[in-house]
């Protein structure tokens, strides 16, 4: 059971998909119940993982390893460490909520909708647990398809354009990624003779690959990941996709899909090509782009007239923080980057859910159509305010923790990074508060809003766990850091050997080794 827990986790939604596909399409409510049932089941089956996951173990856990295509050395090779673990938790929760939140808003093609969603869920979970680069690519590509359909079928007016744009951007990126991972692959064969896509084998190549080659290979990966993140010049698909996708789609997109870029960086791109990642050009360029993204995204969202577009651009800004943290290449930066990814997942999902609430009522996303909602929807106002401040980095809520840790990592490398990034904090408050003022405050300007119903129980319940998460991370982030510490330390040691000893720090990994041995002794 528990040694196959990972397979179970990602197969559950897949099975759910097939079940849903077998249901009669007329019986919508049945489909809804079944789909949501599987979504909840997906959360339940992760419980053994949560119980069994040991933060004191630095290397991969729950490893499953079966030969898949021996000829090319591809394996069915799963396993999680801190990075994957935290992402998987995020995925099951947000996946479940986003499936739930389509309950009323999705009325036509219900069956297909849920089928695609469960499919997407399976794909994303797969990405976060594979340790075989080939399999990773497979999962990575799989998710594009359901996402294409979700945007394209249930999206807004310009959905066709948004869908294909999303697909082509990401596909272009990922084929380049394919090329560079193939290069590593055969370099490995040249070096060691045996064909293998297993992550640790691939990582051994770095020792033999010339720095400049590593540089290019890293960028091969990086462009694919940067498109997914999305990083500044590659971000233009995001606003369209976000805006046109249905609420649940946006939630999944912001909550999880964007995290794959970050995850891919820390799990694959950086460890595979340490010299490529720590190359001066790479670091400065990426940092520059991140900072530009931070300020740029904020300024653009300041000017948006479309509520969802605003949130979408704010994602660009937030993820600029994340990439900045990652490229700082030190524990705080990396842990902060991932944590901020999680935070962004929570708070931006909240914001999108909030948009969805009023969108379901009024079917417009134009900020100008609202105003004075606080008069009619006090509960909604409160929840939205909390989400807003979480996203704006109010201390005591999650956003602050992430940004602060990232800034610490950035400052360690270069003061100016931190200074410029700090501008993002100011602007972040600016566009959100302005949005809040325009939408919530003032008298009701638009008669159509007079009889807006406040949030119903389902909507509140959907947002509740996320808000709880925001507070939890904001008030007691220690567990997250504990989860992230070991893999981060591993990564840093790989990127910058001797980092800890050089700074007179004891390498946490040793600590873990000791604790592990101690644990063994106890038993």
């Amino acid at each position: 059971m528990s040694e196959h827990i990972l397979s179970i986790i990602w197969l559950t939604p897949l099975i759910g998909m097939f079940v849903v596909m077998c249901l009669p399409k007329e019986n919508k409510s049945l489909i809804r119940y079944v789909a949501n049932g599987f979504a909840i089941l997906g959360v339940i089956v992760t419980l053994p993982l949560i119980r069994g996951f040991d933060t004191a173990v630095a290397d991969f856990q729950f490893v499953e390893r079966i030969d898949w295509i021996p000829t090319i050395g591809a394996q069915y090779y799963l396993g999680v460490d801190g990075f994957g673990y935290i992402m998987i938790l995020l995925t099951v929760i947000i996946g479940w909520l986003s499936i739930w939140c389509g309950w009323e808003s999705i009325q036509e093609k219900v069956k297909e909708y849920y089928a695609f969603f469960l499919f997407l869920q399976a794909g994303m979970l797969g990405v976060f647990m594979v340790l075989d680069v080939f399999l990773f690519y497979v999962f990575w590509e799989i998710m594009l398809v359901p996402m294409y359909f979700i945007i394209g079928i249930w999206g807004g007016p310009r959905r066709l354009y948004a869908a294909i744009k999303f697909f082509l951007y990401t596909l272009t990126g990922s084929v380049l990624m394919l090329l560079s991972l193939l290069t590593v692959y055969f370099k490995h064969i040249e070096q060691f003779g045996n064909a293998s896509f297993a992550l640790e084998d691939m990582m051994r190549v770095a020792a033999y690959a010339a720095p400049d080659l590593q540089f290019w290979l890293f960028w091969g990966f990086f462009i694919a990941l940067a498109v997914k993140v999305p990083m500044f010049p590659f971000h233009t698909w995001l606003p369209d996709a976000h805006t046109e996708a249905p609420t649940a789609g946006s939630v999944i997109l912001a909550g999880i899909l964007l995290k794959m870029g970050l995850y891919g960086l820390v799990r694959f791109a950086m460890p595979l090509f340490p010299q490529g990642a720590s190359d001066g050009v790479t670091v400065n360029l990426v940092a520059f782009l991140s900072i530009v993204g931070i300020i740029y995204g904020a300024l653009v969202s300041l000017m948006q007239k479309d509520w969802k577009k605003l949130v979408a651009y704010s994602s660009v800004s937030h993820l600029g923080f994340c990439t900045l943290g990652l490229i700082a290449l030190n524990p705080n930066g990396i842990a902060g980057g991932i944590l901020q990814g999680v935070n962004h997942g929570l708070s931006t999902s909240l914001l999108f859910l909030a948009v969805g609430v009023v969108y379901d009522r009024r079917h417009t996303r134009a900020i100008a159509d609202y105003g004075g909602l606080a008069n009619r929807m006090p509960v909604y106002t409160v929840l939205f305010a909390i989400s807003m401040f979480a996203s704006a980095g109010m201390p005591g809520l999650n956003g602050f923790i992430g940004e602060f840790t990232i800034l610490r990592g950035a400052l360690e490398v270069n003061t100016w990074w931190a200074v410029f990034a700090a501008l993002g904090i100011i602007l972040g408050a600016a566009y959100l508060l302005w949005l809040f003022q325009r939408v919530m405050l003032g008298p009701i300007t638009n008669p159509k809003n007079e009889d807006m119903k406040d949030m119903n129980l389902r909507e509140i319940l959907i947002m509740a766990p996320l808000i709880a998460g925001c507070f939890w991370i904001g008030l007691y982030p220690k567990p997250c850091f504990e989860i992230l510490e070991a893999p981060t330390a591993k990564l840093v040691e790989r990127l910058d050997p001797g980092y800890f000893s050089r700074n007179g720090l004891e390498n946490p990994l040793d600590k873990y080794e000791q604790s592990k041995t101690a644990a063994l002794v106890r038993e």
Partner: protein
Amino acid sequence: MDAILFSAADFHVLKPAILLCLFGCGILITDAFLIRNRAERWKNAIPALAAQVAVAASLVQHLGDVRSGGAFSGLNGSMQVDGFAVFFNWIFVIAASLAIVISARYMDAEGEHRGEFYGLILFAQAGMSVMASGYDLVVLFIGLETMALSFYVMVGFLRDTRRSNEAALKYLILGAFSSGLLVYGFSILYGISGSTNLSEIAKATAARPESDLALFLALITCSVGLLFKISAAPFHMWAPDVYEGAPTPVTAYVSVASKAASFALMLRIFLTAFESSAEAWTPLLGAIAIVTMTIGNFAAVTQTNMKRMLAYSSVAHAGYILLGLVAGNETGLRGVAVYILAYVFMNYGAFTLVAALRREGEAAEDIDDFNGLYHRAPGYTILLAIFMLSLAGIPPLAGFYGKYFIFLAILREGYYVVAILAAIYVAVSAFYYFRVIRACWLLKEGEQPAHLDMNFGTRAALATCAFLTLLIGIYPQPFIDFAGEAVLPALR
């Protein structure tokens, strides 16, 4: 040379071809005498399929022998049965049976349902099987011509449709011209080596000095002829017109089988006769492959006719496969085999659905005719989506592995620029494949929506294609092995 008559061994070697010819003639006779009226015409498919079964059986024997005792040849070495031949024969069997299965309904709808059609399918296959296993210029030439002629006729089989005639005529003129050049090259090869046997020729050419003009002359004319057959740019011009004009099952058959056979021929000749001058033709073929991919992909983007779009896309695929030969290493050749194998199923699947749209009195071949197809036939639309994604090379579907090996091969040879170009073109191709998916799923249906007309055969064909596309995608191991063991020892 005492064996005037066939020996038993020769029969064994020839068994597929012989079977096909026999069944072909048989069909002609039964059609003439037993089949009474149009309604019974589909019965012709039965012996045709029986032929496939028989051939398959003999191929199993061949494979067994090859595995046990290695390659063996017959008829004074003019035929050679090795993994290579067996593999491609399998491809032909699959292609032919699928063609037979989907033809019945289609030709009925066209009102041109005749027994000769099945005969021609078999004869073409006979020619192709000879091409795959032939080891002698004359044999190869005759095989090639048998195939080509049968295709000319099949393409023009709808005598009362001008498109069909036109396609046939164009195909014939260009084909004849190209085979003229090809055989001119053969004659030069003969002149160089004094023999028509490939192994002899290989010896002779290997003995030639560097950059020997005579050899180049042969190389030029042969490669041009062969490139025409695989529809590589700039010799691809026939493909779109023929694909569009031909009856859809034939289009599928041509696009898969004749392409596969031509590749078999090309590999045979280039890796035996011209192996010595590999460094001379590698860059050229590389350039041609790039041009082919470029033209194929870009031209396909703006097509409105489904068959024509697929035609251009098949041109692009030819470019990818060619890259495998360019790389020349074992990964590349394996890639060629895997690519062709995957290509059979996904391409057939797509064409089958196009064929299913053809109903008596209405020809629905435009991409617009697929608009909103999802509402009318969700299941089949899902299949179509699978085929399109596979053609676009999205993992884990069959199409991906072909590209995988090709990319790997060219990266190995260090052709990074080519690799990046090829990769970018994958994205471009995704665009036009997704136009179809978009039409099916995302667009509203038009005024008089086209309907799918299925019969048992079509369904069976679709099921097979979809199943194998998925199977190869999810568990490619056995297929990769098969392709590998088939192609590699035979060629190196």
